[in-house]
């Protein structure tokens, strides 16, 4: 596909591509915040954790390249089963904890990938503790998000 030659047009075109992807909206980066009080979150790596290119791009653009990636989704499923299934259910519709799919999410920010990532990273309330505190890598968090989105039918 040929990008338009004029830089402004190219930028608009690229932005349109991003927006049309459906997964990302212009203000998603604002969702890197605590669901409790909206305070911004700073992301720290675990000791020895390498920040993968997917994570780097995600933090800059809000785009999660693991979406639709079969390999990553397979990993995400295994991680989900280890960490999330007990509260959020095999279908993501919740049981002990709230639903992760559909339109009525407990924390609106979870609709965007940055918003859901921020909740996994920093926790929400009570038993939904910070998984960063539990040693989870950010790359794994993105894979979980990618898997959870496949449950949203």
């Amino acid at each position: 596909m040929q990008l338009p030659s004029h830089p402004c047009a190219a930028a608009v075109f690229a932005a349109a591509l991003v927006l049309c992807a459906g997964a990302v909206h212009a203000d998603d980066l604002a969702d890197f915040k605590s669901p409790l009080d909206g305070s911004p979150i700073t992301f720290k790596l675990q000791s020895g954790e390498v920040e993968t290119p997917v994570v780097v791009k995600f933090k800059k653009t809000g785009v999660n390249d693991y979406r639709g990636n079969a390999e990553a989704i397979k990993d995400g499923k295994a991680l989900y089963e280890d960490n999330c299934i007990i509260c959020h259910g095999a279908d993501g519709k919740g049981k002990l904890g709230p639903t992760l799919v559909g339109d009525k999410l407990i924390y609106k920010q979870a609709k965007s990938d940055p918003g859901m990532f921020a909740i996994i990273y920093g926790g929400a309330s009570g038993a939904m503790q910070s998984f960063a505190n539990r040693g989870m890598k950010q790359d794994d968090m993105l894979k979980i998000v990618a898997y959870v989105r496949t449950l949203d039918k």
Partner: protein
Amino acid sequence: MRRMALAVFLTAACVGLAHAQQIPANPADVAQPGGKIPGAQKLALVKVADGFNDPVGVTAANDGSGRIFVVERVGRVRVVTKDGKVLPDPFLDLTNFNPLGSDVQTGFVEQGLWSIALHPNFKDNGYVYVHYASLPFNGASIIARFTVDKASPDRITKEQLLKSVKVLMNIPQPYYNHYGGMIAFGKDGKLYIGKGDAGWEGDPLDAGQRLDVLWGKLLRIDVDTPDDVPYSVPKDNPLAKADKPQLMSLFGITEQGFTANKIGSRPEIWAYGLRNPYMFHFDQKSGDLFIADVGQNHWEEINYQPASSKGGENYGWKFNQGSYCHPAQSANQKCPIVGVLPVAEYPHSESFEDGTKADTGGCSAQGLGVANYAGMNKVYLVGDWCSGRLFGVGWDDAAKKWQLQEFMQTQLQFTAGNVDADGNVLAVNCYCFYTADKGPTANPVGALWRVLPADKVPQGAELAKVKTN
């Protein structure tokens, strides 16, 4: 004229009496989230100390020292001084006095050391009581007394532990959950013990309703016995004489009279029909009792017992969960209410088996203590382990009903609480959820908090993060 005045006075007196708390007569009278406790001020949760391994219990010293004892599930009790400093050496350590290893079983997150209680005359006798899951006895729960050596007030050494130990009870436990936990002295000087229904789910042993087992109960024992007598049954326990040897009579006794015989019943029972009363608290002022009974998949309940109670209440498990049925299929399900209704209840994310959703509650009610400050009068503060919500349960005298008010939602997994020497409610939190338990010393550390009126928070205090959206 005088007779009229007397009639008016008597009427007024009767009306005054009618304003006292009432146990709900119908499910509709049971308070649910969304209520408002008249006069209750805005609250803040202020950090007192942190760095605890899986704190699951807290008790304030009653000897004027201002110390607070924090229970660590692994089997240690830590001292927080009145200046908020955590002493490095534990007050009590059950993990290293047994030469074959720890005396405490901690394999499952509900197992470990749960509670410490100080004798009402602790200042003079140095008696402390603990309740924990025993490793040597394969998870049975032990209630034991140790004596503090006056020369070492902040530390019961290994030698002193072994020298002074008196075991009061050894209660077998078939499954690794629902042990209950809290032990506490009432104003009557008796030791009360919260025991869960022995575990699994759905009370497969029917422990709640059976009177021949100690599971699923609130127990009440007299610990002021000679050293060679573990405990005695208070003469005024409701079942103290329910199984006494006697001649049989078929006639000349009322129907009610015959019900006093409950053959095989355990006389230590104070109340029954409980699922997992991990926390319960007496109001220091009135002696009234609140029990936070952890629910199964759908409803948490708070029970209330006035100080005048003679015991024997049946709180309904496993026939009822809160004011609903068990199994709780739907909101409209019909079933008998067995025994005494709770005064307040709140739902899990899924409030019924039919998939009804709710987001006003949590999943495990951890009672914290009865508050008589910050505009509150006999309000039972309850923290939820799963949702981090802090609730209050209180009687609304104007509306003549119970209210369940949500004060705040925090990030904390509340486990336990108690009242400090000044009457403020304390709370502890862990990072020890079922699916994220790395072991009793490997989870992120928990903290000790104090509930204060929001306008009385000291300068520079650290507050718990709360939901503002």
